Each structure stands twice: as C-alpha cells, then as structure tokens.
C-alpha cells in the first residue's frame, strides 16, 4: 500500500509516533484507520498520535481515535494524543470527551515523557540507528 502523504511514522525514545497532517474527514478516515491498525507492534508499550498539524477533524476521525484506543486498551497498550491547546480540533475532541479514554498533550515531548513514565523498564526499545 502506498503510504498516505498526510501520515508518517516516527519513533521517539522507543515509542512509536504517528504524525498526521491536513484535514482528516469522512473521505480520509477509512485510510487512516487501516494505516493505524498496523502502527503498533505487540511488543510496543503504546502509541502516540500527533495531531499538531491536523487542521480539521470530524466525527469520523474522532471515531478512528476512539476505536484505536479500544483496541490498544484491550491489548494492554497505551494511547496518547498530541493536540495543541488552542486548535479547533482540541475543542472538537473536548466536545466528544476523548479525554475520558485518551490523554491529550499539548506537545510531543510531553506525550513521550508521559508514556515513558508509565512504561515498565523492560519495554524500552532503542531508537533505530537512523531515526
């Protein structure tokens, strides 16, 4: 599958991060859902979804996040989201109460630190050489 131009993977401090940008709406949500499904390996402690560059997120996008949280939690994996506090999508996510299942962070560093703090020591995975 061709990687989506508005979605990329990184690893920060051993934690997988999915960075999205642009407008995530009813047309893109199915692709994002499919892509995120493979983003977390079994041995990963959790996943961070960075929405800092997302300018638009509707209920279909919101639902992808809820579903993802459900899946990870059922596998005892953590999900965290990065959403700038002044963004429209922060208001959207607050309206649908995503915070009840997914912690929202203002920046990526904060999110990484949060997940690292929760992670047991043996789950640490070194960064790939070129990351």
């Amino acid at each position, binding site marked *: 599958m061709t990687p989506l131009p508005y979605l990329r993977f990184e690893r920060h401090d051993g934690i997988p991060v999915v960075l999205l940008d642009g407008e995530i709406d*009813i047309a*893109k949500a199915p692709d994002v859902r499919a892509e995120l499904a493979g983003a977390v390996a079994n041995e990963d402690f959790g996943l961070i979804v960075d929405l800092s560059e997302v300018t*638009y997120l*509707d209920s279909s996008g919101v639902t992808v996040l809820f579903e993802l949280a459900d899946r990870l939690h059922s596998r005892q994996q953590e999900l965290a989201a990065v959403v700038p506090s002044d963004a429209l999508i922060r208001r*959207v996510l607050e309206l649908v109460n995503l915070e009840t299942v997914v912690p929202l962070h203002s920046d990526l560093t904060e999110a990484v630190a949060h997940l690292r703090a929760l992670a047991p020591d043996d789950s640490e995975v070194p960064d790939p050489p070129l990351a």
Partner: protein
Amino acid sequence: MTSARVEGSGRGLRGLQRVTDAALSHLSLDDLLQELLERVTEVIEVDTVAILLLSDDGRALEPRAAKGLEEEVERGVRIPVGQGFAGRIAAEGRPVIVDDVEQAELVNPLFREKGLHTLLGVPLLVEGQSLGVLHVGRLESRPFSADEANLLQHVGDRAAMAISHAHLYDAERQARELAEASLERLARLQRITDAALAHLALDDLLDELLQRMKEILHVDTAAILLLEDDGRTLEARAAKGLEEWLERGFRIPVGRGFAGRIASQRRAVVIDDVDQADIRDPLLRDRGLRSLMGVPLLVSGEVLGVLHVGSLESRNFSHEDADLLQLAADRSAMAIRAARRFEQEHEVAKTLQSSLLPAALPEMPGVTVGARYLPAGVGAQLGGDWYDAFQLPDGKLGLVIGDVVGHGLSAAALMGQLRNAVRAYALEGAAPGDVAERINRLLRELERGRSATFLYAVLDPDCDEVVIASAAHPPPLLAPADGEPRFVELPASVPLGVTRRPSYTEVTDKLGTGATLLLYTDGLVERRGEDLQQGLSRLQQVAANPPEDPQELCDMLQEEMLGHTASADDTALLAVRSMALDERLRMLLPAEPESAATFRRVLGRWLSQAGAASAESDEIKLACSEACANAIEHAYSPARAVFEVEAVRDDGDVTVTVRDWGQWRAQRGEFRGRGLLLMKGLMDNVDVRQTPHGSTVRLTRKLGRQAVA
C-alpha cells in the same frame, strides 16, 4: 531505224530528266519505285521492268517493284547475290545483257514463263555502293544495244540516287514517327504522373486518374476497387462509366470475378473477349463490356486493390496499354497509402488528444473553469501541450498546464504520460512544488534528454488563494475584477527534465472575487518576428476587461491573439474565474465521501462572504459537515445519490440546511451520536427531521458570538 533511234533518244533525254525530277524526292520508297517503273518504260521500249533492292544484310536481292513481272514481287523471292541474272549484275557491278533467255543458264524460270526473249540489267549504284538492280526485258527477240545499256545505266544511276534519297527520307520519317510516338507516349505518361494531381484530395485524385485513363486508353469504363480491412473483399471506391457500381457499393470477394482474380493473382489480367473468358462477373457482362484489362494496386508488394478498364468494343490491349494502366495504378496506390497513413495518423492524433485532454472540466459553486486546446495548423505535427483541471480530494482545484518540448507522436505520447502522472501525484495530495519535483524525476526516468515546461496551481476556493509551482513555464496572467491584468511573479526555474534535483519554489497569490487566472502555453504569445515580451504585452492588453465566462475568454483569446491563421505551434489555454456566491447558497452534491471537502470549501467561501470570522467559520463548517456526512451515509440507494445544501443569512443568523433522500438507517455505534454531539456543541440550534423519504438537518448559529472553547 535512225528515226527510231532519234525518237528513242529524244524520249530518252526527256525521260532521263523525268527520272531525276525533283518531284520524286518527296515520295516514299514504294511510291518512288512504282513511279520509276513507269518512267523507265517511257525512256526505253521494253515489256517488263523490275527493281530489286539489296537486303539489309547485303547478301540477297529482294524484288521490290515490277511491271510485267509482278509475280516476282508477290512471291517474295530472295535472289542471292552472285546467282542468276540479277545476282550476277549485283555481284559484278556492271550491266548485263542476255540476248536469248532460252539459251541462258541460271535464269529465273519466271522469265521463260513470261516468254521474255532478251534482258538488260544494270546495277543501282550510289558512290560505288550497290543498292540493287534494275532490269528490263523484251518479248521480241530484238537484242539490247550498247547504247540502250548505257541509257539504262544512266537511268539506273539516277534511280539509285532517288532511291537513296527515298531511303533517307523514309528513315527520317520513321525516326520522326518514332519520335512523335514517344512524345505521344510521354504525353500520356505525363497525364498520369502529373504533379498537379498531388494536390487533389484522394477521391478527386482517383476520379481524375480514372477519367484520364478512359481518355488515354479510349475505353468506356475505368474503376478502382480497394481491399477491405479483412483482406478478403474488394469494394468499389471510384468508377467512371460504372457509376452505378459506386451507388450500389459493389463488392466482390478476392479470387472471384475479374477484379477478384487480379487481386488474388497480383498481376495484370487482360481479356480480349469476355465471351471467351472464364469470367462470371455479371456486372461486367450487364454493362456489355467486350474487352477488359486490369492491374493490381501494389505498394511494397502489398495489394491495396485493383484498377481495371473495359471496352464495349472488342480490343487487343497492347503491352504499352498495360504499362500505362500499371503506372496509373501505382500512382493511385501511392496516393491511397499516403491518404490512409494521413487518416490513421489523424485518427491516432484525435484519439490521443481526446485521451489527453480532460473529458470534463470540474464544476464548483463560485469557481468557473474554461479551457481550450488549439492544435497546430494543418500539416503541422502533433504538439506536446496540455492542460488539465480537476478537483482535489480536499475540495481544492488543481490546475495544470504544460508543454513537452518537441513535436510529433513521441512528444504527444510523453505529454500523456506526464499528464497522468501529474494527476496521480496531485490526487494523492502532493503540494505543487512536490508534484513538479516528482514529475521531473519521472520525466528523467522516462526519457532522458526530453524537457518540458510545466505549471501546477492549486486554488483553494475557500480563501481564493492559489499556490503555484512553475518549471520555466510562462507566468500566469491574473486579471482582477477591476484593474489592469498582471503576470504572477514567479521565481526563476529550470524546465522539467533538465537537472537531477531542481527545486521548485511555491508562490502564493490571491485571486479575489471576480478575478480570472489564465494559464497558457507559449503558442499563445509567440509570434514569428515578434519577441516574447511583445507577445506578453499584447496578451496583457487583450485580457483587460475579460468576459465573465472563462470559456468565452479562451475563445476571445484565440480570436484576438491567434486569429485565423494556421499556427505552427499548438496552444493550450486554461482559465479559472473566482465568482461571488449567491446570498442564498444552494448546491447539490453527490452523496460521496469526497463531497464533504467540496462542501467545506464552498461553505467557507460563502461564510467569509457573509462576514463570518475565521474561527467561527471553522466551527460552522465542521458542524455542517457532520450533517453532510449523515446525508452521505444515508444515500444507500443509487436512485438519487445526491444531497442538497442550502445556506442563508437572516439578519445575524446563519442557517444551513442539509437535505437527503436516502433511507434512514439506525445509528450505528456512537459514530453518528458523536456527530450530533458536535453539531449541537458548535451550533446554536440543530433540528433533525427524519421521514421514510429522507432526512433534513437544519443548523443555525448567530454570527459574532464567542467561539465554543
């Protein structure tokens, strides 16, 4: 006796003069010989006269004219030089007298049969060369005297001169006739190879050739049949004197009938008498044709068809006739092949063009697009210009214009590849600069050494902003609603395909309501004998106060900039105009996920027109999009797979109504529930009505209120 001699001499002198008479010099040889016979009898009293001429090989004498001895000529005997009476004269080159034929040896038995008694013969000499023999004979036994021998030798000498002249005259006349015949033949050939024919369209050329063949060969019918694509049938393509053939669309299988036989045998067929020929071709018989001649139309050994002629009278067609017909056939075959190639190329060009240019231009409220592709003039090659316009998944508008350097099928084909690749990259969501860089890479991959100028612009109808990346393409012209048109300033850039890692910087500009953006290729502004700057200035002038409809602008530019003269280069034009939306916005959108983005752009444009601030506009767009998503999900029935959006501003209130005609489906999970949550959270009022025939969601919000957060 004396008186007789004198009388004889007088006759002789007068006769001698007659023999050298200048009037004889214009007679043909045969006429001259006859005339000489007469005149010899006037000079000398004899019963028979004969003239024998040396054969071409010089070995025998051939009796050519005789009086009293006509049988000798009729029998066509050849008398070897040295044998018999005449042969001896020719061999010895002097007069011979035979006093008594009965006693002589080796004398033509005819002389005896005729009862000739005495003979006198003299050689016909010109400058010592023997031409033949003249001899005379008498039935009575009066022997020839030495005087008579002298006299006859004189006559013979003069006759020889006359014969020699006549020979020359004949040779000259034959040469002249030969020359005239060749001229005539040449003229006939020229009528077929006439260069002027080359300017005729195929059908006119075939008609003209057939008409000329009819005249040259003096025939009653002439027809050309062409092999159909299946290679099994001949169909009448042109005919003279057989016009009913054409009307009936005469067809005949290869191998059958006259024409079919020529095609299968691939060679000329001549039939002198139709009745004798094993040809069952009712059409030819019905026409009453007696003789037929036909040749195949061959090009590089391939049979294209058949050319045949027919005569109502019985004819024996000569080799020359057949050669002429073949020449006409070759001429026709070449023209047919050229025309077919042209047709094929034209067809390929048309197919290419239609596959390379978008079938339809995108439509969107508030934005109108017009375009035009102008191929180069007749006779010019295919060009590599293209334009493209499409809606992007995020509801923005992609506008492409490009020009592959070079001409011909290869340029056009490469253009097609680039066009598709641009679309593919663009629809993936790549930004203009990124698209240009990727296309550069692709072009270098596809055809090293080729280059292209290229420009990709993305117009966001929401804010009227256009983001442009250009690869050495002429700058777009931006004509505002009021004011002078200006060229969009672009950084210097290299064409696609030239360097390995070019950087294409994006430039952002703003259209503004009522403004037109024109993309074009250099064919529009380049004119022979004019520098590019002049062309650009001309465009700037012509495009001032453009017509509102971009399509009309393209038409106008074609008229004003290119006129009616055939252009050497092709030209592509793409114009887009940003327009004010109606105060009451109404649009029908296909019930597809992709419509959501379009809806947001258009609603955003309308909201800013209605005076909404950016933040509240974003919230209203999101809330209303949820209603759209609802409509899109409902549209399971393809019967009416559209939904309707209406937006009005009443005092400070904005009301957006989304209506669908789909089957209501029960909410699945919490998805729609969250949608409703968002609608209610972001709007002042949300009213949802569901019926078995569809649902209507009405959302209202007062402008200028505090944002939700």
